[in-house]
């Protein structure tokens, strides 16, 4: 029997078709993956199932064989649909118990919250599914993995039979991912139906039974995961053959060009975030900095960029100290940067594309003269960049906001390369990009390396670090816990598990 069936579901925003005739049948008790690139329409589809959007006329939704319309999330919840959003919807100063019962609190006879009954119910759920929670901990004090469990219990507490998980592993550590897989297995064993939205192929192979692929809003195919390879899934997702490995030649490291010594940086709460960190970068190599989110990467990058004061240590480029200089001076010392959050830090989203190309250089010739902008030069420069990096659409008058994530990232990359840097710090350079754009950015980074630039790649995606880097350093709790040489990187068996162990705090 099907727990959920969608027939010919479309959703149009203005002239844009986010979903176009999608069919989806989810069997009761299975784990069903929805695979698609960013912007393929996965989230729109889930929002339709959860009652946040209404589909265009002509589509049909069946819940347990019964035709329904889902006008509101309230209706969806009532009918046993639960959703765990990618960004958790939790009240941070509340306890786990309070968060779980929020909105559906059991009452005592005079109207106050019956915590006793609630606790009993929640603990029963926790035991049945082996969640292992402490109901009185405040949400703001628990790990991300634990927060996700709270979200899942929330849906179970509301009697969900069908649970939608939106990019569930995006924020988890490798260890937490394994715990998560176990939770999903448990849920399935106890008869729940699960939909997982993802673009991670190995995750699908790991836990899903069947997989529906969506591309550019169109329904492509539903496949059995057991009989489909990762390569096949990838090609169906992007619509052409893809090579999951990055091809690159051996690195030829040159002189040392960038050098961080004993760097210590505090975070916003004045607690040490980076502790006596050392790094060296040579020309013509990519150093990957592997680590779990929140181990000091953000503070490190901000300190390197001159955006955050640091307590002690030194940062040198070509033997010249750049620590404590202004961001402008650091930029002029040939340090380029792809920031983690391109929409907030990389681009001024409501500036035109041509203006974003010269954000750091508007004062320089030929872009301005006596403080007046020379628009002609802006356009010339932007046109040439658009051409060289194949940025689409080819319209330099559009606001950066109107470009896709991949093209936005290309603008940043183009802009940074144009300054002919010696060192490029790429922080999560492919976050949220689709396979095609990821390939492009990776190739450009390797091209830069081959031109003799030094590249520091900081990524939470271990696959990306391993694929791209010539050397790897693992950052744990603000310090480098281990340096992994090029030899180890190519000869070590199970390199991913090997590095993952260090990331989780293991030692040599």
């Amino acid at each position, binding site marked *: 029997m099907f727990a959920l069936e969608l027939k010919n579901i479309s959703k149009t925003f203005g002239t844009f078709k986010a979903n176009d005739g999608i069919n989806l049948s989810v069997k009761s008790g299975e784990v069903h993956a929805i695979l698609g690139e960013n912007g393929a329409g996965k989230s729109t589809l889930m929002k339709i199932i959860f009652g946040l959007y209404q589909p265009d006329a002509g589509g049909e939704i069946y819940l347990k064989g019964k035709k329904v319309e889902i006008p509101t999330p309230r209706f969806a919840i009532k009918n046993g649909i639960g959703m765990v959003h990618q960004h958790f919807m939790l009240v941070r100063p509340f306890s786990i118990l309070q968060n779980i019962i929020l909105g559906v609190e059991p009452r005592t006879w005079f109207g106050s919250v019956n915590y006793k009954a609630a606790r009993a119910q929640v603990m029963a759920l926790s035991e049945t599914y082996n969640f292992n929670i402490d109901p009185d901990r405040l949400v703001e004090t628990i790990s991300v993995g634990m927060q996700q469990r709270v979200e899942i219990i929330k849906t179970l507490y509301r009697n969900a039979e069908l649970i939608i998980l939106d990019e569930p592993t995006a924020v988890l550590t490798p260890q937490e991912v394994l715990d998560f897989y176990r939770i999903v297995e448990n849920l399935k064993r106890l008869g729940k139906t699960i939909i997982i939205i993802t673009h991670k192929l190995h995750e699908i192979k790991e836990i899903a039974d069947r997989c529906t692929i969506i591309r550019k809003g169109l329904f492509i195919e539903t496949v059995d995961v057991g009989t489909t390879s990762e390569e096949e899934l990838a090609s169906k997702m992007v619509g052409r053959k893809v090579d999951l490995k990055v091809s690159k030649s051996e690195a030829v490291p040159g002189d040392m060009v960038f050098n961080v010594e004993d760097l210590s940086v505090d975070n916003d709460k004045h607690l040490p975030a980076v502790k006596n960190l050392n790094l060296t970068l040579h020309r013509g190599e990519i150093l990957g900095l592997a680590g779990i989110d929140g181990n000091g990467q953000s503070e490190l990058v901000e300190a390197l960029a001159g*955006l955050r004061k640091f307590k002690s240590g030194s940062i040198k480029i070509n033997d010249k100290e750049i620590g404590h200089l202004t961001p402008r001076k650091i930029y002029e010392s040939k340090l380029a940067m792809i920031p983690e*959050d391109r929409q907030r*830090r990389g681009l*001024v989203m409501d500036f035109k594309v041509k203006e974003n190309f010269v954000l750091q250089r*508007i004062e320089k010739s030929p872009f301005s003269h006596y403080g*007046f902008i020379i628009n002609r030069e802006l356009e010339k420069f932007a046109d040439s960049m658009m051409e060289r990096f194949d940025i689409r659409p080819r319209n330099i008058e559009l606001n950066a906001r109107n470009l896709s994530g991949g093209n936005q990232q290309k603008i940043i990359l183009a802009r940074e390369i144009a300054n002919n840097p010696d060192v490029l710090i790429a922080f999560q350079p492919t976050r949220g990009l689709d396979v095609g754009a990821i390939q492009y950015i990776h190739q450009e980074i390797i091209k830069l390396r081959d031109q003799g630039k030094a590249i520091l790649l900081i990524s939470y995606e271990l696959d990306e670090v391993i694929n791209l880097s010539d050397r790897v350093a693992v950052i744990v709790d603000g310090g480098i816990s281990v340096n992994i040489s090029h030899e180890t990187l190519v000869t070590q068996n199970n390199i991913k598990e090997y590095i993952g162990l260090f990331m989780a705090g293991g030692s040599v």
Partner: protein
Amino acid sequence: MKKFLFSFLCVLSGLLFGALILKLSGISPVEAYKVMWNGAFSRPSYIAYIIIRSTPLILTGLSVAFAFRTGLFNIGSEGQFIIGALTAAYFGFIFNFNPWIQIPLVLALSVFISSLYGGLAGFMKARFGVHEVISTIMLNWIALYFSNYMVLSEGFHKVNTETSEFINPSTSITILENWKSSDSGMNWLSNHPFLNEFMRPSLNAGIFFALIAVFIIWLILKKTTFGFKLKAVGISPEAARYAGINVNKKMTQSMMIAGGLSGLAGATHVMGVSKNIAILAAHEGYGFDGIAVSLIGSNSPFGSLTAGFFLGALKYSGQKIQSALEAPSEVISIMIGAIIFFIAIPIIFERPINKVLKIWEKK
């Protein structure tokens, strides 16, 4: 185009809402608007009055709009206006040079000191993280009481009054003030009835300063690297910081310019209209009206110009329904309030406008 249409619809709705209020108070809206229309445009002197009324509104509107482009909400226009007015009144009274020196000197001093006053809020935000809305509200009151204190100070206070001494005639920017009351002037004007009427109110050169200010601000925002960086800070301070723009410095500079513009409004008001300053029991509202002007003008220089004239006309003609129809002139305040209300909830009009524009483009 879209922004203009949006403002226009908001204004129209505000006027309709005003009509409703009039109707509820038992006054014919058609009659009232007729009185207002005639009261605003039927005679040359009315237009001259509107110009006089609009001048400070255009400048304070420009001040708010400019700060807004850098992401700052300049509630302090009121206080900066007072500081500008006080400076002009004080130095206009103390100094007495040849007008060709006196006027530029007093204007420059007013703009300079009020820009420091505005810049103070920007500096406090940049240096200590004090939110500019809070600090400028405080600074408004500080300005008000400081001005009152100065009015009462010995040497400046006009004895037995609630006001300061008048500025020296050399400080006046009223146009052709002496010539108008001279024999030859009266003679000439009586032969030119339109100009005679138009010149009867004491028109002042403030409007020219306002026009020049509008043009300069437009130039800064549109054509200069300085404006480029200000806008980058306004839209996305994080990205601006990453791009090596000194965000704190830009905020201070932006507030300085905003303060200078409001100060210019106060100075032209004293030098062209009031000629002295009085004890204030409460704020006069030139700065607060500037916020309305800026919002109606969608925070652009030329928008502020248009909206300044509009609000000036509305306020001037609004007085007339009181005497003609015994309608409460507060209706005007209600209308302005309603217009701002509609602007504050853009969703009412944005969707219909987008639809209309789409159909338009298809044609």
